[in-house]
């Protein structure tokens, strides 16, 4: 690394990005710096550190939902009553990221732009159908998160584009969401596989709408639409969740790495989907299940969710 900039506004950061090809943006540094120190890649030649760009740390609430600045930390999301009550899956996810130190430093924008298939916030943002705003000298454009994620470590953002905010659209009433992941260790962990689910209950108590997305199951976080289609109109019970979860496996192309084999990941997709659906449905029905759902699952007996 030879040059380091610390702009104080988003516009300044975008100008620097335009000026320095190959520059990388760093916010909390919990991915970029750690990976460089671990020998996974070299530090980029130019670093643009945006932690001082205060306009990237804003929170805007309006009738469309809520817009979170790119610098919003996981720690803030984890503790926010607003996110916890409305967009619970995102709070579930942020609460699981790394350690307290990682969550205090790591940002939502950084988590997204690092584009790890195992990122915790990706699947929740997919079920919320969130979109992001990208800023460059050419202007601003809005991109759905689903279109932003292009592959492992890759996004569709141009090299000179800066992610400035993430919008969480408002949700209909009687909606609940959850994010559940499998982990080897109970803290400081990366998802072995993870699933986010969103369930909206109709007046008849059946599933009026639902969305399911997966992490660490494919080169990007992905929606499991077949599972969603099956579940709409069904009763929100264990049997329906299991049937839907079984279909989620169709959306996955897991890999083998030091954490788990592809076979294990494939087998676990239905378990985490089923568990996420159960929590989301319970929350939709008004049951209080504390964030993170992962650490507050009801006692599970064999076969009840598998």
């Amino acid at each position, binding site marked *: 690394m030879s040059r380091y900039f610390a702009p104080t506004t988003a516009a300044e950061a975008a100008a620097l990005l335009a000026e320095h090809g190959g520059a990388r943006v760093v916010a909390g540094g919990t991915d970029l710096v750690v990976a460089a*120190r671990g020998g996974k890649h070299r530090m980029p030649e130019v670093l643009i550190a945006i932690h001082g760009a205060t306009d990237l740390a804003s929170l805007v609430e309006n009738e469309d939902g809520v817009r979170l600045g790119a610098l919003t930390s996981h720690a803030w999301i984890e503790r926010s009553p607003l996110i916890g009550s409305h967009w619970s899956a995102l709070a579930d996810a942020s609460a699981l990221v790394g350690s307290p130190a990682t969550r205090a430093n790591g940002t939502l924008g950084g988590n997204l732009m690092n584009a790890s298939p195992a990122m915790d916030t990706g699947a929740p943002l997919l079920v919320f159908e969130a979109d992001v705003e990208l800023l460059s000298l050419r202007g601003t454009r809005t991109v759905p998160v689903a279109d932003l994620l292009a592959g492992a470590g890759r996004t569709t953002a141009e090299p000179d584009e800066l992610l400035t905010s993430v919008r969480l659209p408002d949700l209909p009433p009687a909606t609940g969401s959850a994010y559940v992941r499998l982990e080897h260790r109970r803290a400081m962990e990366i998802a072995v596989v993870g699933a986010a689910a969103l369930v909206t209950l109709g007046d008849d108590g059946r599933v009026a709408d639902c969305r399911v997305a997966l992490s660490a199951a494919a080169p990007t976080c992905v929606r499991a639409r077949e599972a969603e289609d099956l579940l709409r109109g069904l009763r929100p019970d264990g049997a329906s969740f299991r049937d839907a979860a079984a279909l989620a496996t169709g959306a996955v192309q897991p890999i083998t790495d030091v954490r788990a084999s592809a076979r294990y990941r494939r087998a676990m997709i239905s378990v985490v989907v089923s568990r996420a659906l159960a929590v989301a449905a319970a929350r939709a029905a008004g049951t209080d299940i504390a964030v993170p759902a992962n650490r507050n699952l009801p006692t599970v007996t*064999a076969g009840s969710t598998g």
Partner: protein
Amino acid sequence: MSETLDLREQAIRKWGSDNRAIRKGKWIGKPARRLEDPRYLTGAARYVADLELPRMLHAVYVRSPHPHARIVSIDKSVLPGLGKTVFAFTGEDLRDVPPLIDHVALDNLLRTPQPVIAIGKVRFVGDAVAIVLAADRYAAEDAAELLSSVVEYEELPPVPNVAASGASDAALLFEELGTNEIYREAITHGEVDEAFAKADRVFSTPFEHNRYMAAPMETRGVLADYDRADQQLTVWSSTQMPHFLRSVIAGQLGLPENKVRVIAPEVGGGFGMKMCTVPEEIAIPFIATQLGRPVKWIEDRHEHLIAATHSKQQSINLEVAVTNDGKILGVRGEFVGDGGGYSFNTESALIEPALAAKALPGPYRIENYREEVGAFLTNKSPVAAYRGVGWTAANTARELLFDEAARGLGIDPAEFRRRNMLRSDELPYLSCTGQVYDSGSYLESLDKALEAVDYQAFRQRQEELRQQGRYIGLGISSYVEQTAWGSESSAQAGTPLPSHDNATVTVDPSGKVTVAVSVSSHGQGHETSLAQIAADGLGVDIKDVVLLHGDTSNTPYGLGTYASRSAVIGGATVARAAADVREQILQVAGKMLEASPEDLVIEDGKVSVAGTPSRFKTLADVAYAAHWDSEVRNSEPLLSATRFYDPPANYANGCVVALCEVDADTGVVTLDRIVAVEDCGMVINPMIVEAQVHGAIVQGLGGAMLEHLIYSDEGQPLTTTYMDYLVPTFSDVPPIEVISIETPSPFTVGGIKGMGEGGQIAAPAALANAVADALAPFGARIEKLPITPDYVLRLMGKIG
């Protein structure tokens, strides 16, 4: 019985068990708060990384990215400012420094001399290729990155594991040896073939013990300063063995030993990893002597994971011959070590397999046993000591197999153990591998642990829950822990190494006590526990005792701290020296009080006539007079004594029981509870003992459930950050209860036994047996660690 009594007498005659040397007063046995903790807790403690010297250079290593390669060229000329602001040293530059070779006294062990920086070829990813130095770490890192990019290698076929290492066409790590197998030896004790021939049943298991590592909070680090005026080399190192390191540095660098001073400042954990001399501890001092400037190297975390020594990896094939009623007739075991790129200095690649083989019998009556030990070189970081060396693997394989045998015979696993375990009245006992178990409570420990978890109730509940599709399990792991490595212990362990240790106790003219020891603390609480012994020996408060350790210039010669030796050896040397100083004090006080020294007592810092507490002098008064009053002082007035101790081997014991539940959908294991019964003879400080048990169990838990240093088939390390190498966090540790039994050793001063490794030795088997027990309905057999959820589902047959 007569034979065992002979053993005891021989040992006592040989070693002189002067139990009277230790005085038990107000402090020994008390859970005294640790005197060293305030500086740890307030961040005031200073480690190597905290030290700064004028004109100091920072060293950064260039390390091999290849598992096996020839170094073709290293073009240092690419470095801007070379020889002025930036300095670089390669293996060629250190050609005059002799390579490091192990110290194990076995003729048929092939040696693998390790240059302190690689010369000619590299043998693992992380092998040292060059050292780059600059005035600050940033400049040194940048220069190292630049130099790293121009090193030319000719890659050689990697040898990633033992199977590849032993293949007929395998590339050789040391061509001159003609083989990668550096050791193979089989020894038969008793009538093994007969035992197997007459057995009703034979049970066997292959077992792969995973490669994991100590990963202490403080990584390795060295600061060296050569004073040209005094021709004195001072080395600060995060080491467990400062005096031994001094001897090695003096030898390697050709310096007079009295011109080398080694200081272990605060050491943030060692666990055996910082026992052996590492190449960096030679290379950095050498460079400091060449440049005439202080040189500091602080290992970073990534470097630590790939280039610090690894541990534990070995393959064990174990067979046990039994009768239908569960009596063990004989055991056969093959222990093969995966030693990494070099058979590491000090203890060699045998440190895992040979120690495992000798310790295999554990607390059981095993008279017929064939042990076969092999060791191979592979292109991985070398294997060296880590808490529970060899013994962890032996205990895990044995306890897993015994559960398997019990299940196969339809005998309760606790009962199977009882039928084969040595009773207390059978001790001292000479094991078939030549280990003299001095005393212990093997059956009592097992029973106490089972009682604590209400064993029968657990079995009932297990049955009920199985009906509901829930799987809970209970695992038992009994162990014997060889402690107090002196000459005899190391010989009984299978890797003989002479031992030498001393302590000096001095009372100054103000009556305060300074204790200088050759053992070296890296967090164990020596400043408290050894002060407790000195305080009781001299009748003072522990706050009046200062303990010096870790600096060769103010402590007597000795081997430092490893293999649970410091309580026994440090404790005995301090007790003996304190007893001598006490005599010196009483001589002076006798004259002052006009009483016979035999009639005097020292309590609470006062010397008084026994039975007449009003006739007293304060220790301060006596000490003052002892130094300055020519009427009463002794002919050798200094109140000081130095004493030596090389203990007979002795063995702690205990039992760890773990309870778990397996999530049958995900294979995730939740640990519910761990109970540990620990018998380490006379306890000096129960709080420290309990904390040692906790710490060792957590490290054992890490090895059993999470920690695994994984290499690809191409020899590349895949676990290069702490996100991939999973050390247990607080939330992964269940409640741990520690129950103490005290069976004093008849062989050692004060009956003290060492402790601190038992948790790591026993916990993995307890956890593995708990999981195997939970999964018994699936016929699961655990044959490797760690027990990942993925592996659990495979054991259950849910994934292929």
